[in-house]
């Protein structure tokens, strides 16, 4: 090959790897943005709604919240949880949590419908409904106690995700640093031995 040809090939290689690196950086950036959205926006919102639901249920069980308050707040919480689930991001990146939520949501929805009915008939059924939160009893084919426990488990899973979450860029920088250090070390030992 002539010197000119080599220069062209070198330029093409540099340009190609630059484009690939740029594309790769863009993908990583996008991915990181989505991860940030999920971990810094969606999951905290879900955590907040579910945590509120658990606390509200406990307050209702212990007589700290009336059926009116319980039904009204539950209605809003179920709406919030629904909007987070149906937004879709979680499906792609947090399959495990999504499955748990998909299992919980219909039950929450039914509990909400029942709470509304009990609210309408509160004189007759409020105490019995409240009782079903304390003793793992069935009320309209569902056990409110189990729903609260499931919600609590999901909040624990979300909390674990928070703890584990690390930025991909930082992880890549650390990886590159480690790789560079490793190459330098290998070269150093090679120079000593030769």
């Amino acid at each position, binding site marked *: 090959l002539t010197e000119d040809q080599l220069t062209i090939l070198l330029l093409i290689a540099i340009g190609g790897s630059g484009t690939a690196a740029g594309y790769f950086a863009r993908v990583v950036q996008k991915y990181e943005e989505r991860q940030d959205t999920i971990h810094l926006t969606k999951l905290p919102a879900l955590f907040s709604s579910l945590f509120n639901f658990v606390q509200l249920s406990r307050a209702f069980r212990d007589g700290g919240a009336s059926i009116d308050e319980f039904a009204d707040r539950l209605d809003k919480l179920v709406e919030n949880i629904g909007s987070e689930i149906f937004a879709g991001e979680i499906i792609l990146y947090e399959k495990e949590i999504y499955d748990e939520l998909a299992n919980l949501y219909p039950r929450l929805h039914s509990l909400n419908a029942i709470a509304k009915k009990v609210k309408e008939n509160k004189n007759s059924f409020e105490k019995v409904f409240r*009782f079903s939160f304390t*003793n793992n009893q069935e009320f309209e084919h569902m056990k409110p106690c189990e729903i609260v426990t499931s919600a609590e488990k999901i909040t624990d899973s979300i909390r674990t995700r928070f703890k584990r979450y690390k930025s991909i860029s930082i992880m890549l920088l650390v990886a590159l640093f480690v790789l560079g250090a490793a190459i330098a070390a290998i070269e150093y030992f090679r120079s000593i031995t030769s």
Partner: protein
Amino acid sequence: LVIRSHVCFTRPFLIPDLAIDPILHDEYRFLGNLRAYADYYLAHEISHKGHGHSTVDIEGLGTIELKPLNKRITLGGFWKSFRIPIKKEKEQADSILFQFLPLKMSLGLNQISARSSSRREMFEMQRSAYLFPFGICLVNCDFYVGPRENFDEWSYELTNDDFLDLMKKLPRATIFSKNNTNYNFRNFVGYFGENLVKKLFKYPASIQLGDMHTTYFLSSDSILYFNPDKLDLGRETAVAIAALMSGSTILDMNTKSPEELRLVLREILKGRRDGELLLFNEDSSLLYPSPLWLDALKTHQGTAAVKAKTSCMYHNYLSFINITLALEKYLEYIIANKENIPKEKIDTIRMGLQGTFLNKAIKSSHSFYFKTRFEPIAKTLGIADYLTTVEKL
């Protein structure tokens, strides 16, 4: 619907000769005279088995004692509404009110077998009879449906359909007796009644059988509730209970409109505690204690207290049903046969009724559970009308 349930079949029979002017064998003469009856009652209400009670021998059942209810029971449970006024007004009210305290005959523990849609079940049942001196005897057949203690390997899970099926078949199922004389509950009452009057009277006397009433006492292992107005809450429970109360099937009841279902459940009576159910119609009653009350009881006093209180509630209700059905049958009879019944007999019952839970006793006994429940039940059975008629006789 059912995890644990106590069920009792109650069938009254009338002994017209005892209601009119009986000629009894000497040893049973006290049944025809209220003063003598009261003396017999007072003399034997605290004595133990075999201590001077009159007995009657019935083939296949053996020697049966005519035992007054124990004083501990009459002063503590349902019967106190009759027994306490007697204690207070010993002179006058004694003999009149004693007519509402029956003699109990224990007819033994037997087995009964019935096949539900999926399997054959065997139940142990306690039979007893209550004889009122005004001429009514009620045979009770009490048994338990549900898991039994010391039968760990037997997982008992009756579906609603199974339970309903069993309840229809049990009154006609064979009762196994010692001497292989096998009866079902329905014809056993006739057999017992005929043999009883044969022994009591000097001449061949007759009996008139009444209709059977079934009492269901459901346990509180699960919450039962339904909204009778809209049926928007607990519809499935309402359907199952309606099927039980009407002797129908769940499938039939499921096809009914809310209005038709409400009609079946119309006799719902407000329980004293939250979550309690008490339903009544001519054929059956259903009693379900408040799960909230039992839970609080369990927390504060333990499981033994729950067992004791529910047992007390059930037996009080049975006592209530027994005397209510006895009065219904008797009042119906005296109204229809007023010409044949001596005036003093009518006066006695009238005076007695004035002094019982309809008037005086109900007011003096503040904790009387059935105080508010008698009125709608009396209306359903027609007793309210009978009472008005008897007042005018």
